[in-house]
């Protein structure tokens, strides 16, 4: 089968790899019909995540058709069209039982700090991902969800990560009616967080980024304010000024370790890897939020350390909330939102690329070429 194949930082190709096999009674094999490249895949692509091994297939946002099931799979059957949450969750451990499906304790032997994630290095379990024609899906009784009749597959594939992560960013931010919400990052997650902030009753939504085409996009898509930090002398002062000098009620870091905007953070975090990515967005979020405010983090960082103004967290009495999205917990509500037309996930897809051209798609997304917001990969078997 064809599958994306990581060869090193900034190098991927599509190769023939063996078909995946059932390796556990709760496994399923899914024929992929759509997969996305996630902004967090770029952290892998840029070589920022430790234990990213050459030969791995990335891809944690995908949908497809169930081709084969293990002997203990009862919740889905062969032929079902399913969306597969990016979290691999057993449903039985203490964390899954409390709906912390992104924190499963039985899916990632390599690290205890994160549950298993499809195609996201050995630090997240060593699973090959969905940027392929076929993929092995463990714990198929828990994660995979049959796509409701009539739902557009392009909407469904974005429900496996982007929408839940954007929604949970807003949910963790504890937004109250009338709150001013500032979102750092106008990538797919930031765009979705901006859109979802309104669902929680935000009074004002402001997005900060440095790419004009993305700012323009989010202004239109999420009906919010959007500013280019390159044109602001200091984004924190700007936020203070525009909130009557008090700061935002809520700040969301939707960037993570690939953040631009601070030379020192960029050199130490992205170039020299002396910290776990550049923490510029988080730094700004902490400093731009009001006293007693909330900072919500969904941006992905590596597992070591980051330079952030933790003293200000204490002195300002900030609550920091963060997690990988618990996709399974959120899906029922998000499906309702999509079906009711309150959310239009597929509206952020800008590039539909054949799987065979994954290397170009990665480069386009990484280098922000051709006004790229969200690329999806379509395997040849899904194009006929």
């Amino acid at each position: 089968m064809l599958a994306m194949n990581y060869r090193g930082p900034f190098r991927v190709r599509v190769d023939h790899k063996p078909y995946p096999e059932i390796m556990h009674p709760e496994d399923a094999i899914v024929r992929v019909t759509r997969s996305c490249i996630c902004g967090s895949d770029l952290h892998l692509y840029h070589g920022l995540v430790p234990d990213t091994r050459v030969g791995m297939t990335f891809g944690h946002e995908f949908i497809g058709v169930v081709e084969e099931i293990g002997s203990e799979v009862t919740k889905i059957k062969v032929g079902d069209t399913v969306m597969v949450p990016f979290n691999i969750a057993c449903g039985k451990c203490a964390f899954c039982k409390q709906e912390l499906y992104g924190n499963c304790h039985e899916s990632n032997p390599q690290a205890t700090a994160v549950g298993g994630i499809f195609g996201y290095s050995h630090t997240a379990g060593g699973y090959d991902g969905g940027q392929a024609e076929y993929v092995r899906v463990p714990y198929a009784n828990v994660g995979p969800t049959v796509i409701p009749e009539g739902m557009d597959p392009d909407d469904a594939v974005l429900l496996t990560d982007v929408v839940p992560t954007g929604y949970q960013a807003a949910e963790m931010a504890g937004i109250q009616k009338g709150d001013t919400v500032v979102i750092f990052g106008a990538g797919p997650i930031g765009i979705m967080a901006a859109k979802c902030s309104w669902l929680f009753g935000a009074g004002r939504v402001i997005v900060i980024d440095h790419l004009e085409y993305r700012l323009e996009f989010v202004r239109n898509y999420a009906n919010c304010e959007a500013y280019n930090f390159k044109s602001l002398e200091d984004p924190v002062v700007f936020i203070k000024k525009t909130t009557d000098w008090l700061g935002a009620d809520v700040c969301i870091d939707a960037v993570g370790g690939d953040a631009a905007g601070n030379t020192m953070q960029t050199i130490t975090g992205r170039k020299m890897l002396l910290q776990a990515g550049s923490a510029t967005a988080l730094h700004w979020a902490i400093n731009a939020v009001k006293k007693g405010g909330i900072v919500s983090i969904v941006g992905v960082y590596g597992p070591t350390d980051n330079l952030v103004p933790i003293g200000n967290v204490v002195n300002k009495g900030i609550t920091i909330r963060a997690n990988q999205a618990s996709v399974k917990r959120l899906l029922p509500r998000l499906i309702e939102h999509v079906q009711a037309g309150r959310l239009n996930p597929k509206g952020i897809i800008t590039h539909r690329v054949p799987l065979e051209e994954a290397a170009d798609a990665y480069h386009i997304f990484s280098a922000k070429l051709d006004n790229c917001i969200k690329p999806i990969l379509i395997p040849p078997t899904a194009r006929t």
Partner: protein
Amino acid sequence: MIMENALEEKHKDNAGWAIDADPKNDPTYPIKNRTNEEHKGYTWERPTQQFVDIEVLHSNERPNITSVFGTSTPPSGLSGIIRRQAFKYSENHYGHWLPLILADRINVVEGIVDDLKRGHIPNIFAERGWNAEWKYNRKAAVTKIAVGVALTALLVFRLSKKNK
């Protein structure tokens, strides 16, 4: 309720125990449907264990290999030796993460060697998405090519001068 009664019994001699406890004081709401399952320890009924027929490195912050695991790219070669050493240290330690990053970089060279051994010459330009760069960012692509050619020419010129 049974767990709560047992807790109260356990702390009955501890004056004021839980007197200010407030279930609403829970910053994890609604992310966590709190039942305090983890207070029971690692006692849940584990899923069937996936057969371990490849080398799986596991964090020393857990006692075992998880019930399922990925089988992509088991450790091998020099990078594998480094990864095995790294897993002797916990996730709390630079001794774990920095060697893993080193192993990743060595693994890139191993990948090229493996390609060549299989008779495959990797098309580095295609792998780096140069088709897209040429299509959407031609000016930058031309600049990079010009700089590359100039540096190579300079290097060749210097080497040839040295050899003379």
